[in-house]
């Protein structure tokens, strides 16, 4: 289980997270929605220890992330995979080398590495691209390789940073399907997105981050039926909470 207790983070004078409390239940996809700059990606980075919170606590299983030493963080990152917004593939390496890199760090043998690379590429329907460089792949393919790289380590959790941003509707559907499939394999997902269609499709629970705090958490149906004007405004995509949605959009 991932638990955030009163997590605060500021960059200079700008307060990004101001007491985030969130529980991510095992075996579920929890989607974090919120406006640009609301701190969604910062929250993910706090969970995997790329950023240390100024206050509050992030707990993954029995570990408090801020208390982990170098080896503890390395062990945590074996349990938590991270899919970056723009995939963040190593552009000088082939797809196979990208996926194998994390496995080599864990000292798997060459056969085990080859098997896992093959399996994870098959999972994301990209068998046969092992020898290609990231620059030879489309944006959607790169993101799927990013998922394959995370899945190859067989993590308990995967953190997805804007997995469908910039993708066409068909590729978005493929990504949504992948996130559901990984959840069905028992992997807990934390997904940060602006894309409400994707959020409602993949999310078992949806949390709205607003002004540095969690504004509301609920199932997709609860969020759809929310009476909270800020959450309503966001899911309906209206510019101002006081302005009713155009009739065509409701």
């Amino acid at each position, binding site marked *: 289980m991932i638990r955030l207790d009163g997590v605060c983070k500021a960059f200079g004078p700008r307060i990004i997270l101001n007491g985030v409390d969130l529980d991510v239940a095992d075996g579920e996809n929890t989607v974090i929605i919120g406006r640009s700059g609301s701190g969604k990606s910062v929250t993910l*980075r706090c969970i*995997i220890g*790329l950023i240390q919170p100024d206050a509050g606590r992030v707990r993954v299983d029995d570990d408090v992330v801020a208390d982990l030493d*170098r080896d503890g*963080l*390395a062990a945590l*990152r*074996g349990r*938590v*995979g*991270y899919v*970056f*917004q*723009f995939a*963040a*593939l*190593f*552009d000088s390496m082939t797809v196979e080398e990208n996926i194998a*890199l*994390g496995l080599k*760090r*864990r000292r798997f043998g060459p056969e085990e590495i080859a098997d896992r690379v093959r399996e994870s590429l098959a999972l994301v329907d990209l068998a046969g691209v092992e020898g290609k460089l990231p620059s030879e792949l489309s944006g959607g393919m790169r993101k799927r390789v990013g998922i394959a*790289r995370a899945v190859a*380590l067989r993590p308990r959790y995967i953190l997805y940073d804007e997995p469908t941003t910039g993708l066409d509707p068909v590729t978005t559907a493929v990504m949504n399907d992948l996130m559901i499939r990984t959840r069905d394999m028992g992997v807990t997902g934390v997904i940060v997105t602006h894309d409400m269609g994707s959020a409602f499709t993949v999310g078992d629970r949806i949390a709205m981050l607003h002004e540095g705090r969690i504004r509301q958490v609920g199932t997709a149906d609860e969020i759809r039926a929310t009476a909270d004007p800020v959450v309503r405004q966001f899911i309906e995509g209206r510019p101002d909470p006081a302005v009713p949605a155009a009739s065509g959009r409701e």
Partner: protein
Amino acid sequence: MRRLEALRAPGRIEFISQVGRWTLGAARALADVSVWRPLVIGHMRRLGVDSIPIAVFIAVFTGIVLALLASYIFTGAMPLYMVGALVGKTVMMELGPVLTGMALAGRVGANIAAELGTMRVTEQVDALETLAYDPRSYLVVPRVIAATLMFPVITAFAVAVGVAAGWLTAINLLDLTSVEFFKGLRLFYRFKDVWFGLVKSASFGAAIALMGCLKGLSARGGAEGVGAATTRAVVLGCEAILVLDAFWALVLL
């Protein structure tokens, strides 16, 4: 008391703490031998072997100019075989290491800063961390070791080529024979001339690679940030060469 108060100022404490953290991190990264060792040879080729042409190019013209300059200075004042002494001494001890270092500060320092800066702004460095790699072990240590090992090799090439260029200039353009040139070359030669230049160049390699890594890894904000980091890495690399040059002169001469 004033010193203590100055140390307590938040900026200085933070700086000292940063330096401490960096030193500790670098020491830990060195212990990750299994991570950096397989990468060193590749970087030695890329940072070192590929830099030999530019070093040789600079050395050729340095040797020519030095021979002509020495002839201009010594004619009528000193025996002309002193051209060999001046070319040998200055190329081995100063111009070989420093000019090669300056050229490589541009080539190697910029290369490292741009590469690591691009990796930083495209989240590849973060991706490395999420795969449980310490970026210092994977990115910094192999580059610094490769540059430290390869700069003396490149400098040795440059020195040999520079002296050869000076000799060819002396026998073809000046009124000097090979025997006279090598008489001058041997006259003041000491083995220290060679290792002094090579020790200096090793320290230049370490400094240039370190500046490139530090500036590259601290790049922010896209292409402009990478450009700024690259420029800063080259400038800092050149400054480090001049400071180290003076340091080694004070310590070893």
